[in-house]
């Protein structure tokens, strides 16, 4: 089987969420002597790209996307375990749901999609204080900071976190992206965020745009 066919088989296995079959395709690709970075980029990542588009078109369901993401992660880990240099992450992404807000469903999905898109993801969890955000940014120096808020009562905290970053002189070193049900582009502009994303797929696209990666 040529490498194109192996990759297409891998893509289909990931899309179908079939971990056994995907793992077999990865081993097949390695045995065929294919480059690990190519397997990751043209097999695993391509599968998630296609899934993202299918999801936007309403052709697949969220739990299926998340299952595929798990298969992606397992395959990526297997690639890494197979030795050699793993592909460098396209960027470091830090996520958190702001203080007072316990809703982290959307933020978690963004994290999973970011990971499958090749980002290193640092998830601070939910109900994260402004101080904790500032400390984490200082310490980890992320390329992108995603602030999530689901409530109209907590979205104001997104502005506060940005203000704190400015005060600490950290604002210029990080791209801030906001999201959540009550959030809009208008709100993002008003509070001085760099981007607004309506869903996980868009979050990935915006992050790529801001960092100038494919």
């Amino acid at each position: 089987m040529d490498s194109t066919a192996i990759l297409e088989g891998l893509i289909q296995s990931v899309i179908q969420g079939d971990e056994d079959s995907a793992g077999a395709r990865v081993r097949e690709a390695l045995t065929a002597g294919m480059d690990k970075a190519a397997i990751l980029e043209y097999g695993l990542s391509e599968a998630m790209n296609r899934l993202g588009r299918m999801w936007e078109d309403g052709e697949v369901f969220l739990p299926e996307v998340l299952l595929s993401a798990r298969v992606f992660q397992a395959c990526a880990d297997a690639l890494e375990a197979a030795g050699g240099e793993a592909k460098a992450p396209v960027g470091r992404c830090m996520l958190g749901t702001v203080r007072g807000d316990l809703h982290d469903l959307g933020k978690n999905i963004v994290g999973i999609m970011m990971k499958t898109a090749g980002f290193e993801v640092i998830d601070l969890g939910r109900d994260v204080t402004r101080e904790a955000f500032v400390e984490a940014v200082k310490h980890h120096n992320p390329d992108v900071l995603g602030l999530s808020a689901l409530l109209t009562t907590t979205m104001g905290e997104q502005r506060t976190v940005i203000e704190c970053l400015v005060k600490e002189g950290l604002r210029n070193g990080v791209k801030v992206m906001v999201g959540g049900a009550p959030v809009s582009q208008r709100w993002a502009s008003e509070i001085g965020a760099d981007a607004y994303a309506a869903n996980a797929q868009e979050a990935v696209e915006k992050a790529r745009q801001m960092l100038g990666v494919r």
Partner: protein
Amino acid sequence: MARMGFDAQPKLRILSDSDIRRIHESALDILENTGVMFRSDEALKILAGAGAVVDFKAGRARFPKKMVLDAIAGCPPGVTLYTTDGKPAVKLEGNEFHYAPGSTALKSGAGDGRDAKEAVSADLRDIVRLVDRLPHIHLQSTAVVVSDVPRAVGDLYRLYIVLKYSNKPVITGAFSIEGLTDMKNMLAAVVGGDRVLAEKPVAVFDVCPSPPLMWTDISTHNIMDCARYSLPVEFISMPLSGANAPATIAGSVLQHTAETLSGVVLAQVVRKGTPVIYGGAPSFFEMRFGTTPMGSVETMMVDVCYAQMGKFYGLPTHTYTATTDSKLLDMQAGVESSLGSVLGALGGINVISGPGMYDFLTCQSLTKLVVDNEICGMVYRLLKGVDTSDDALALDLIKSSGPGADYLSNPHTLKFFKQEQYVPGPVVDRRDRKNWLARGATDMITKAGEAVAKVLAAPPPASLSANQSSALDSVVRGIMKKHGISSLPLGPEAAGA
């Protein structure tokens, strides 16, 4: 007497057991003492021979109680309808419910339905092709009267088109006495003879009394012929409450019961065991405008009540709901069609006619069929009820997951989300506003139009085998010859052509 109940599903009962009993006794009283008019001496003679007290001059037959009770007892408790290739398709019994497009509309409307035009053969072909592909509408109907063929074959030519483009069972009816026999011959040609047709029926024939308490010559003969050929006959009693029936729900249901039972008696007297369906298309008369609203809630209450009577008699039931009086496909159309679809199903009515129809029962619409198919899908979900198994209740899952858990990526969700949720087609919009805007901000009618175009752009399916098709064509050619008709819009081609 009662052979069916309302157990084990979401359900709606309006009449109490004692209400049903009173209506039943009252209907027997009407049948015994007032009687029903049949405009056919042949029918009156047959009824007299079977024990009815007949006044031939007045054309009226009165039925002793026992005669009515025997007739009811002789009816099969259900009817299974088959596809034209002999597979069981639709079971009309118990609380199973199946939707059928509204039938015999005069006009066909495109888009939002505002500009409905007289329907032609091609309109019916498109309707049949669409319904063939709609998963929640299990039956076909001869949905429109086609204005581009001679009146003499107006009824049977519709059946011809349905048979050519779909193998779903069909709700139909004849416009004349001999039309019924012609149509029977067409069906027999397709399924492989009269005997197969009697054993595996593929069509139901609607026959309507003329309220109050009368049957025309054509209706009477249609009943008798259905009985002779063993074709399922569906009685469509249509009390117009306040116009040709009492202005009360109870009185309308009573009249409906008496009329329908009189049809049951005639069918069973001609041939015991004739499959009958306890149907109807009542309407609560609109006193302001003199119209016959199908979307009024009282109409639907009459529907559910008479269906309870039908269930009391242990017979499969039918009604005409899931339709609207609106002249265009607007919110009124959505409200009335939804309410009717839900109430009919909650009433456990086996055949629910109406999808696609609007403007009372005068217009059929491809667009509305697509939308109504979604309503039907949602109602099927509703009536499936709630899975309360241990796994579905998820006690262990909730306990082991604890506060703040993420269920979205839990395997339990992956296992259940599709079976618990009815996923509607693209005409139902559930995107967020931004995505909706990005995709053209289209409304339901536009999206339904796109869905229709997609179905009709595909090559038409061949519902019949070559043998079935030529047998059907040959019967229709014979009928054309009889009427001196040289060509019809969608075939069959003349012999030798």
